[in-house]
């Protein structure tokens, strides 16, 4: 005997579909929030580390102690950590649409900027230093294939010139100091490299030109 088809199945299916999708949405939201708070913690830790470095520099200025070598090591360590973290957060925020990652990114930019300024200060204080800062400006909003190429160039440059410390900053940011740097160097497009001697190189550049330029300043 054929069972009569019950039309309520249509409605039950509809309700279950809603439930299922809401469940999917909540799961995604929960997992993303977990990850976001993990990145927030790392960003906070990073910020604390740069605070500590700033204090160390302040101490050396007050007590007139030579801490150049250890300061350089600390900055170097933090710089390497930052590059890894920044690219991870950038990648993660592009693929996750349920949370806003702008505050974390802004916090990281501020910590990185602080580190950059500390290194500059260290250079002026210690005169002779192991590290030299190079600014890399990237575009986080527009699709930037040349930024990808520039990252590869910088990786190679770091191998060939170990004294170079790369500080990556986004082109569009609400940071006044960065705006000042960009205005000073007339930067409107990305990618751009600002060498330690303040020479500006927009777009994809031949690595040999960069090395020659750095060699003139005994950085490479």
């Amino acid at each position, binding site marked *: 005997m054929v069972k009569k*088809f019950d039309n309520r199945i249509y409605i039950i299916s509809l309700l279950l*579909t809603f439930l299922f999708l809401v469940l999917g949405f909540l*799961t995604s939201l929960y997992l993303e929030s977990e990850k976001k708070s993990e990145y927030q913690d790392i960003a906070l830790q990073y910020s604390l580390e740069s605070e500590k470095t700033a204090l160390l520099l302040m101490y050396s200025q007050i007590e007139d102690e030579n801490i150049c070598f250890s300061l350089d090591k600390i900055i170097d360590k933090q710089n390497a950590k930052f590059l890894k973290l920044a690219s991870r957060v950038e990648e993660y925020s592009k*693929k*996750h*649409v349920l949370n806003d990652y702008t505050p974390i990114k802004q916090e990281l930019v501020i910590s990185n900027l602080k580190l950059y300024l500390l290194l500059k200060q260290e250079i002026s204080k210690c005169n002779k230093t192991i590290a030299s800062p190079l600014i890399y400006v990237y575009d986080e909003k527009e699709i930037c294939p040349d930024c990808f190429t520039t990252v*590869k160039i910088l990786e190679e440059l770091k191998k060939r010139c170990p004294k170079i410390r790369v500080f990556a900053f986004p082109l569009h940011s609400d940071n006044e100091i960065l705006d000042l740097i960009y205005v000073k160097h007339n930067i409107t497009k990305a990618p751009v490299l600002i060498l330690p001697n303040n020479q500006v190189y927009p777009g994809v550049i*031949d690595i040999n030109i960069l090395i020659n330029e750095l060699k003139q300043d005994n950085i490479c």
Partner: protein
Amino acid sequence: MINMTFKDFLKKHKQLLLSAYLIFSAFLVYLTISQPIQFLIITLSFISVYFVIFAILVYIFYWEQDYTPINIKKYPKLSVLVSAFNDFPYLYGCLDSIVSSDYAGELEIIVITDGTFDLSKYTNIISIVKPKSFFATGKKTNLKSKALNQGLKKATGEFIAVVDADSFLKPGSLQIMINHFLNNQRLDKKLGAITSLVIPKNKDSILERIQYVEYAVYMGFLNYVLSKIDSILVTPGPLTIYKKSMLDKIGFFDESNITEDMELTWRIHKNGYTIEKYEDTVVETFVPKTLSQLVRQRTRWIRGKIQTVFKHFDMLFERKYADFGFFILPYFLFLEALGIFLFLKILGINGKNMLEIIHNVYNLIFVAHVVPSPELNPIVLGTSFYFGVLLSILSIIFTYIGTRIGQFKPRKIDLITIPLYFSVYSFFLTAIYLSCIVEEALGVDYKW
């Protein structure tokens, strides 16, 4: 199930349903304006999930296989139509399976061939049925529908079984199907056709096993669910039994359509007849062994479907065609259109990525003078991944039920087959779909 009518249910939860509907509509309007791509993805997910849940519920509440045959004193005369090209290699086996199915009533076998036919090869078969009930006919024709119509004109049975020449019936199939037909006809006077489960005869290579899974899911599970809401989209060529009086009334196969079985199915629905699928009878058929054969077969199916859609476009969203016109047709056409859109989108994204990679490598080598080193970036899973996982779980349940209904017997090789079925195969079919749309739009002739 709950002792409440559908109307009562709607009445009781009217406010709740209306609120949910309004919230959902507002959300869709917002998405359409602000995020058109996300809107399409969410819509696709929603309708896919809806149908999968619907199918699973139908399976849970209605699956029953216990078949109790009714007593029939005299089985009606059955005409079996087999169309084949000249001395098709599988024809003997096909005819042998028909006569061996031991139909209790009078059996008439009509073989429609294209040109010459050597009767001497089939003396064993002819000796089983009455000689006057076996004959071959045929004029030069490239269309199966024309051949079948020639046979239909000669058929004298009360029921017509159409069997593909590369298909093989299991013993007892015809009798069980006719018994089931007569049994259900008492409840449903408009029952016009009955189909069976189709599974591949050849199921050894990876390509054949992928089709085995596909047949189990679509010919098995999907057709079962569609049969419950009288919305079967196609009465498969390997074995379908039609009521002759219905065919006389609504007309034979459409000779201008390359998927005559699908066109007839839609016409059956249009004329208010119903179609059932009976799970207990199985017919085995040869499936394409090579990719080129598969492309040719699917091109025919899809182009025929497009022709059928154009011919019966008036059935879409038409309330009088019930679930078939109001739910299933719009649902599947919309799903397929979205599938094509996503396919193009993925193709576009990957194509663009590929161009970017070429551009970057060129820049690195020739502008920056840096030797590119291959590196594996850590995989970052996006929001869509979580939804993807949930959708995959549902798809796996759907496929699992399909493989059960479709009598799929797993082997070790299926560790490769099933992932391929879920990934590459659907993209492959969508690509064929796309090429068929282009061919139809350009009016390219179809060659058998």
